């Protein structure tokens, strides 16, 4: 960077923010770089987390925003475990990811609600009110939640063109498709911002700034392959146990996504309306497998974290705990609906469970832009950038040589 001089005005509020979302140990670091040496994922050409630690200590929001290393970290915990000063770089990185998420996504108050314990009741209330309003609208008045025949299985149907949809499906489609649309829009916007800062930070020559189409076709597929295989995650030292449950959880989500998609097509479009026979219908079975994988994964992560805390390689702060338990609740309430629906004397409580399940799913959708769950998108982006960057480095080098 030669004679370039960086103007610095340390940002005390940024430091305090990092400390408030799990990075309270950030200031302890005395820059010995043990962390960067023990990190199994740190690349030689741009090692982390030592440098990011001092950037965080000085509150460099912009620098951290433009640094993919934040996301290439998988919180293996080796840095935290071997840090002589217990500065916990792994945990600090988790909080940096939260900070970066907050910077990139609009409506920051939602981020605050997601990452501070006092925000939980507000979030539940928001999602309940939205679901309640759209239930009242679609069910033509407030249904009796303690009568399954009133909610969710009412006999109100809507005819839209050739489709004949029950009220609950209309309600779910309205709420969740618009929610999904919102999430996609803000995240696409965030990813595009992120990508641009990366390009600028690494001074990528114009000739190599490919179109999104080319990026997706050339680098997204290998990145997704890598992510599904958990090939980086498995290099972890101290927290290598996380790779397997996380993989199962990812598989669980993928299967559940496929299940939901199939239901959407079969029920809403083809008109094979639910409820289907819970014991014989193949789509149901697919959902069960997905749900079981999800529960297996999430319970594995929760119990594994408890063990990891004992060996000081990981800390579970509120944002971590929130997401873990939210996913667990999604899984449990999902299965609870099946059970309640099938047992006559619990049947009438199905509506309540159904509502709770919808609330948890609503919170999980909204968690993508506002919580730790953002890693689903941002880490993927960082991995894509990493592959892209390495590739153009190679190209630049060979063009230099020729």
């Amino acid at each position, binding site marked *: 960077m030669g004679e*370039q001089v960086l103007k610095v*005005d*340390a940002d005390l509020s940024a*430091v305090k923010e990092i400390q408030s979302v799990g990075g309270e140990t950030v*200031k302890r670091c005395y820059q010995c770089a043990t962390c960067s040496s023990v990190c199994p994922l740190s690349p030689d050409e741009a090692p982390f987390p030592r440098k990011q630690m001092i950037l965080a200590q*000085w509150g460099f929001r912009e620098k951290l925003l433009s640094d993919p290393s934040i996301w290439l970290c998988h919180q293996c915990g080796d840095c935290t475990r071997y840090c002589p000063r217990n500065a916990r770089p792994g945990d600090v990185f988790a909080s940096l990811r939260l900070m970066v998420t907050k910077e990139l996504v609009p409506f920051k108050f939602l981020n605050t609600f997601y990452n501070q314990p006092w925000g939980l009741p507000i979030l539940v209330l928001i999602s309940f009110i939205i679901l309640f309003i759209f239930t009242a609208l679609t069910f033509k008045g407030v249904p009796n939640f303690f009568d399954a025949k009133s909610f969710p299985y009412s006999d109100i149907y809507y005819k839209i063109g050739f489709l004949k949809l029950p009220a609950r499906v209309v309600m779910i489609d309205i709420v969740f498709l618009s929610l999904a649309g919102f999430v996609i829009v803000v995240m696409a916007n965030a990813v595009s911002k992120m990508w641009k800062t990366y390009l600028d930070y690494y001074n990528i020559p114009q000739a190599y700034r490919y179109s999104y189409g080319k990026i997706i076709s050339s680098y997204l597929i290998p990145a997704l392959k890598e992510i599904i295989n958990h090939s980086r995650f498995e290099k972890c030292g101290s927290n290598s146990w996380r790779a397997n449950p996380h993989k199962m959880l990812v598989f669980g989500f993928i299967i559940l996504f496929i299940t939901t998609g199939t239901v959407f097509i079969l029920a809403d479009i083809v008109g094979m309306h639910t409820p289907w026979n819970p014991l014989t219908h193949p789509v149901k079975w697919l959902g069960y497998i997905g749900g079981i994988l999800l529960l297996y994964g999430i319970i594995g992560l929760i119990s594994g974290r408890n063990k990891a805390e004992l060996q000081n390689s990981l800390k579970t702060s509120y944002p971590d705990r929130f997401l873990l338990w939210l996913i667990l609740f999604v899984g449990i309430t999902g299965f609870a609906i099946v059970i309640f629906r099938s047992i006559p004397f619990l049947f009438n409580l199905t509506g309540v469970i159904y509502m709770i399940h919808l609330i948890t799913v609503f919170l999980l959708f909204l968690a993508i832009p506002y919580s730790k769950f953002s890693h689903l998108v941002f880490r993927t982006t960082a991995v894509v950038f990493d592959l892209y960057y390495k590739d153009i480095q190679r190209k630049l080098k060979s063009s230099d040589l020729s």
Partner: protein
Amino acid sequence: MEKIGVFICKSCDIEKRLNIEELEAVAREQGAQSVYSKEFLCSKEGRDFINTKIQEDGLDAVSICACSMRVNYDVFNFGKVAVDRVSLREGVVWSRFPVGQNGNGVDDSIEVASGVTFRDELMALAKDYVRMSVAKLRVYKTPEPFKPEEEISNTILVIGGGVAGLTAALECAKAGYDVIVVEKENELGGFARRMKAHCETKPPYKNLVTPIVNDLIKEVEGNERIKVYKGAVVTKTSGGPGLYRVTIKQGNKEEEVKIGAIVLAVGFKPYDASQLSHLGFGVVPNVITNVDFEKMAVEGRFVRPSDGAPVNSVLFVQCAGQRDENHLPYCSSYCCLASLKQAKYLREANPDAKAYIVYEYMRTMGIYENFYKTLQDDPGVFLTKGDIVSISEGSNGKVKVVVDNTLLGEKVELEVDLVVLAVGMVPVTAEEAVLNLEYRQGPALPELELFYGYADSNYICFPYETRRTGIYAAGAVHQPMTIDQAIEDARGAALKAIQCLKAIEVGHAVHPRTWDYAYPEWDLKMCTQCKRCTEECPFGALNEDEKAFPIPFITRCRRCGTCFGSCPQRIINFKDYSIDMVGSMIKATEMPEQGYEQYRFMAFVCENDALPALDMIAYKRMSIPVGFRIIPVRCLGAVNVSFVKDAMSKGYDGILLLGCKYGENYQCHFIKGSELANRRMENVQETLQQLALEMERVTIDTVAIDELEKIVNKMNEFAETIKTYGENPFKGW
């Protein structure tokens, strides 16, 4: 001594390798009155046996031919009876081994020359040692304690009334000594009095406390044994330990007091920041020193000097002149702590304020690491290693600082309200004589050019001791240090001052030869006023009269024998260490005829490091050439050129002197001894050249106590080199 007894121990392999009867015979030939040999002389039976024989035979001196003088010295102590130790164990049977062709150990019966076995050579060595001991005891005189005619004063003078001085004064008073404190300023308390706070001086070493010097002042002022002179200086110090006459000037009034020992605790001055214009001092507004900032903290108002605007950001520059050859080449040890402390002041006064600290090395001494950690945890303290590139005027009265090589990985530019230069310590003694000693070698403590004006001498072995006996340095005049260290330092110096008074009362050397009653005596009839002794004494123990005759002050003397070594007239002698004695020892050895294939070497070995190293060589059963005869000396400075002449004319083929390292990182216990010896031996070598002898025949080498391999190699190399020159042509003259 007339009646000399020789006791030969048979144990520890001595009887196994040596012929005891032959040794007994040699002792008798040399003139010993009684000769005995026995097993385990160091056992209770052995000691009782010696005691009985002393009584029965009326012995006044005994030669214990057993182990090294460095062990069992308490066992072989027979009160008034003179004792000499012959190291048959470490010096002979445990350190001289025959080596075969392939480098393996072989039997003593191996032939080393035509008709000469190794055992013959080993016996020749042991016999020489026995002869030397008897010859030595013959000229030995029992030392008497030194008792000055004048009455000894037991009052301790403490110069400087800061933390160190007050602590030293209190410690001495508590131990029952009268103390006089001389403080230059009109108030006690020194530098610490002007501080807002400092780091606590006890665990957990994390917090700030109000200066503890306030308590010390109260305690000192309330102590009956301590007399305080404020606004006073020392204008003259004459005499020596126990016998000082010190003139104290207070206002216009001068007063002479009698003093026993002195604690020098005059502290430091902050480095002159006007020398730091490259860091913006005096050039850029709002660049101040840590002393200025402390004053701001005491006043409780952090504002910019230029416009009185409140200070929201401060950048502390560490090593503002320290560790810089152009300013202060050393670390001042307190400045990192001071800046951390001042950052805390700022952060406590204004929770939104930012404190940057740019350092080269963050050094918080000892457990003050805890304080550093506490400040590090403060979100508003921003630390980085870095080099200051420039400090210049910024916008709106701010100061612009450019820092390179930061931990951020880039050159950075900061704009802050205030830049604080953490300036270092300059000892008061660097600029002022303070003591105004009436010594021939000058009014100040001698400058070794190793300690940058600090009143320090041998930091390895003797902390607190300056190069003037009876004067002990404490606090920041001794070394750069923190308040906590100064308190500990003052206690140490107080203890040393008391030890000094005790030693003078008893009549032996103060240190390091604390047991030593003998002292140098001058036979001035033969003195040629050459001034070598008065100039070379490392401790300034000698003054001169108007005709340049030496005037010894024995209580200043440390018994190193440098004067003895320097005297061309050989008129300086100790009762138990004299020119005559060493000469007799050399003469007593047996020198083979010219043409005998075995060479003889003489080694004069310093008792402080080289001799213990030789003992360790013995404990490890390493081997040195059997041809070496070793004479321990108190310091290489105590080797008179006459020893070398005697040994050469006796026929020794080579002479090796082993002493301590000198120069930077010196280890010489008497500071200058080995260095002076080196200079003297250069002259000897010139003389050898004039006689057409190889100058390598007299070689001096410096070794550290742990360099065993090196010593063995040196001695072997020396022996091999000399063999290439052939025998000493003066052999047999």
